[in-house]
């Protein structure tokens, strides 16, 4: 580490100005749970560090008529303890609760999870399934990007991730999540799935988004699976068919990879879990 200057920033404006002036020499630090390891190993060597973890402007969860907005510096613990991120949004609660350890959840932030860009970032599949929109700001201006498209045009060196927002779920919509890790407490997840499903009055799936983590270079929508499930009623054979649909996409995407045989088997467990949770919701039972 060879850091020459550090800032306990006072406002978003100040952070944007410093990033604008110093560019690649400056790095933002939030919870530090990814970046301090990288700094300590000299994997990155910024000259300036800007702490944003105490910026009120970037913290907390806000609800308005249309959207729920989560500030980038909101910690996993704050999300887990929030009453807003519950019920129909249970999948996001579950994802955040399964991150690392209590110590990691107390510090790690949702903005850091997205900005760090890991294919295994646990909060990202549920946020993609929700149709999440990320807001990024720099001295050049502000841009909004769908989280599912974000990875094709990720954060630039002068940008600060302000928040992520998504539409408030309706009563007939449910977000679910499942993760297969090596060990519950600390394994960085190897496989995750999240589905956002709307049921119509006849229990038919009238809207669906499914997102996966660690099934590709970055978390992504699983469109083939969505196409298969749309318009169907969640019955036993349909769940089995869904597993085959997802396996088809994986076979194409992961052809020749040594992890494919394992992932083909493992995926059935977590796909069944998210669909059964959705089904339980549709039947009026809380699965949790």
């Amino acid at each position, binding site marked *: 580490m060879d850091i020459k200057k550090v800032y306990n920033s006072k406002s978003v404006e100040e952070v944007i100005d410093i990033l604008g002036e110093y560019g690649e020499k400056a790095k933002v630090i939030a919870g530090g749970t990814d970046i301090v390891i990288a700094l300590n190993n000299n994997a990155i060597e910024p000259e300036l560090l800007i702490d944003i973890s105490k910026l009120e402007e970037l913290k907390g969860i806000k609800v308005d008529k249309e959207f729920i907005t989560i500030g980038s510096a909101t910690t996993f613990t704050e999300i887990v303890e929030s009453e807003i991120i519950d019920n129909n949004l249970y999948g996001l609660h579950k994802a955040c609760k399964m991150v690392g350890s*209590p110590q990691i959840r107390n510090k790690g932030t949702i903005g850091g999870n997205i900005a760090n860009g890991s294919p295994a970032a646990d909060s990202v599949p549920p946020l993609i399934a929700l149709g999440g929109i990320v807001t990024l700001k720099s001295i050049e201006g502000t841009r909004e990007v769908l989280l599912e498209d974000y990875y094709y045009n990720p954060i630039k060196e002068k940008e600060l991730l302000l928040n992520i927002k998504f539409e408030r779920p309706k009563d007939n919509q449910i977000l679910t999540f499942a993760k297969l890790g090596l060990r519950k407490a600390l394994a960085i997840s190897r496989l995750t799935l999240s589905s956002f499903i709307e049921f119509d009055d006849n229990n038919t799936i009238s809207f669906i988004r499914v997102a996966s983590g660690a099934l590709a270079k970055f978390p992504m929508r699983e469109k083939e699976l969505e196409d298969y499930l749309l318009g169907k009623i969640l019955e036993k054979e349909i769940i089995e068919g869904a597993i085959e649909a997802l396996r088809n996409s994986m076979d194409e995407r992961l052809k020749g990879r040594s992890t494919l045989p394992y992932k083909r088997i493992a995926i059935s467990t977590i796909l069944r879990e998210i669909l059964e949770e959705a089904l339980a919701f549709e039947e009026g039972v809380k699965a949790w």
Partner: protein
Amino acid sequence: MVDISITVNDKLYKISINENMRLIDVLRDELGLIGTKEGCGEGECGACTVIMDGEIVNSCLVMGFQADGSSIVTIEGLEREGDLHPVQRAYIEAGAVQCGFCIPGMVLSTKALLDKNPNPSDEEIREGISGNLCRCTGYNKMLEATKKAMEYIKGE
């Protein structure tokens, strides 16, 4: 160098630290509080756990300057006028301490858990110390120690 003021174990320190220091370096090298241990240095083991503004954190993953204005409790801060904290006493009595390397962090995680939730279930206790690895005990002794500590604290 950067000036910070931090309260550690109820004592206010105004010090000048190197920008590259992590919180664990500040505690051990600047303040001489070597009860906080460094195991992995990567957030995995919890040996470096301290309580920061009421919540447990890995002090190997916090930069020193980020702790400016914060209040920290380390293992040295638990004793009460020469007596052990009930959690410390319970750990010793339950035989939960073997080599001892994990214990400062483990005890602080247990204390923070009981501060928030005086009646945790077994599952909540295991979850509360899930970020603290122990090579020696197998964790059942920690569970036992935590239950003892719950009783001591209630009796106070």
